[in-house]
């Protein structure tokens, strides 16, 4: 469910074009470092969890980030 949440967020807010392949890294999706910093801060605010800098880099894939959110006990609001 976090994969869908993240791909929607990336399309609507971060303007990643087209259909997002969740197994691509953020670098491959052309999400720049400012946007990654912003995304990390946004997820921390949204879910009240910690996302460390080395857990969200250009090499991270959407699927990996979704797994991280799951493992930290994040809960998508209804």
């Amino acid at each position, binding site marked *: 469910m976090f994969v869908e949440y993240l791909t929607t967020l990336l399309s609507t*807010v*971060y303007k990643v074009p087209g259909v997002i392949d969740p197994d691509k890294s953020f670098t491959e999706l052309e999400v720049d470092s400012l946007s990654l910093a912003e995304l990390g801060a946004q997820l921390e605010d949204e879910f009240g969890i910690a996302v460390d800098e080395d857990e969200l880099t250009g090499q991270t894939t959407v699927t990996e980030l979704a797994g991280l959110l799951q493992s930290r006990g994040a809960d998508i609001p209804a």
Partner: protein
Amino acid sequence: MNRRRQQYPDVVITGIGMVTPAGTDTATAWKATCAGLPTAAPDARLDGMAVDFTCAASAFDAHRVLGSDARRMDPFTQYAVAAAREAVADAGAAGGPWDPARVGVLIGTAVGGLETWLEQAGRLRDTGARAVNPLTVPKAIGNMAAATVALDLGLNGPALAVSTACASGTTALGLALDLLRAGRCDIVLAGGADAAVTPLLSGAFDRLKALSRRRADPSAASRPFDRQRDGFVLAEGAAVLVLERAADARARGRRPYASLLGYGESSDAYHLTSPDPDGNGARLALRRALADAGVDASDVALVNAHATGTPQGDAVEARLIHSAFGPHTAVTSTKGVTGHMLGAAGAAEAAFTALSIDQGVIPPTANFEEPGADIADIDIVHGAVRSAPVPVAVSNSFGFGGHNAVVVLGRA
């Protein structure tokens, strides 16, 4: 009018955009300003403050205008980008007949991204450094209105922020005139933006006794030149004008609103916040502006005054206007409607002045009923809009720190 000076190419205003408390586009703002409808009202952002009312640009919907990009902009930048887009579309330049490398952006601001600084200072204090948004600096720093307009419209010329307090918008127009006369740009988007309606700024201005405290009747609080004036009303917004050389506008078939004939500036070097009571600095700026425009004082049919509604400032300006133009030149202060938009004020007022020239109508000074005993004999337009030809007009701006900036506009 007898223009003496022709060594520079004429510069004209071909586009106007604005976000103001009187309307979030130029047509709406101009209509409300001509109707003399005050916009001051209680503001929930200032609940509990000694002064809890403002002139707010509350009709502005950042997300509707800017989409998700709005999150990356402080409100002062949001207003500037919206105003710049409107101005460029109005000038018939959207999409760009221009060489982007030859288009400059000059956006004045008195305060910059205060709301962002305050929000993030709160997060730092309450939660720690980790909670500080990584976008804090690129949202808050004072150049970002100019920089973001350049980014948004793909312009590669100079993008500059100028800061002369409440004269910033007028200073930006003057510097834009220089860039165009010198041939360093072909088009300049020039204006001002401020969004400083926060408890901190309201409280700080109130501690200087600069604000009206008419809490019982906010809509009557912004009353330039009036006997019962007691300070200005804090406002927010942006205005951007498209300036280009007259020959270029003609070549692309655009009819300008007005010409930007001249600019003058000076510094009081008198006091941190008070104007020189003799108005010497302001008089110097006015003389320079008229000389730069190549017009005589007798050519001037309208003064859009800085007049914010403070007891001292309005009296000094009225004496200056009386001594320079006599009792029969029309004077208006559109701040009766809009309140004081700080760094955006001069740009919005120059835009209103250009519309007065274009349409032959002068908006009234809202809330003005009876001049203060200390207001010199001048012709303050009030009560209703006045129809009158305006071949040449002056717009004054003065700022804390003793900055004086005056533009002269005329029929194109």
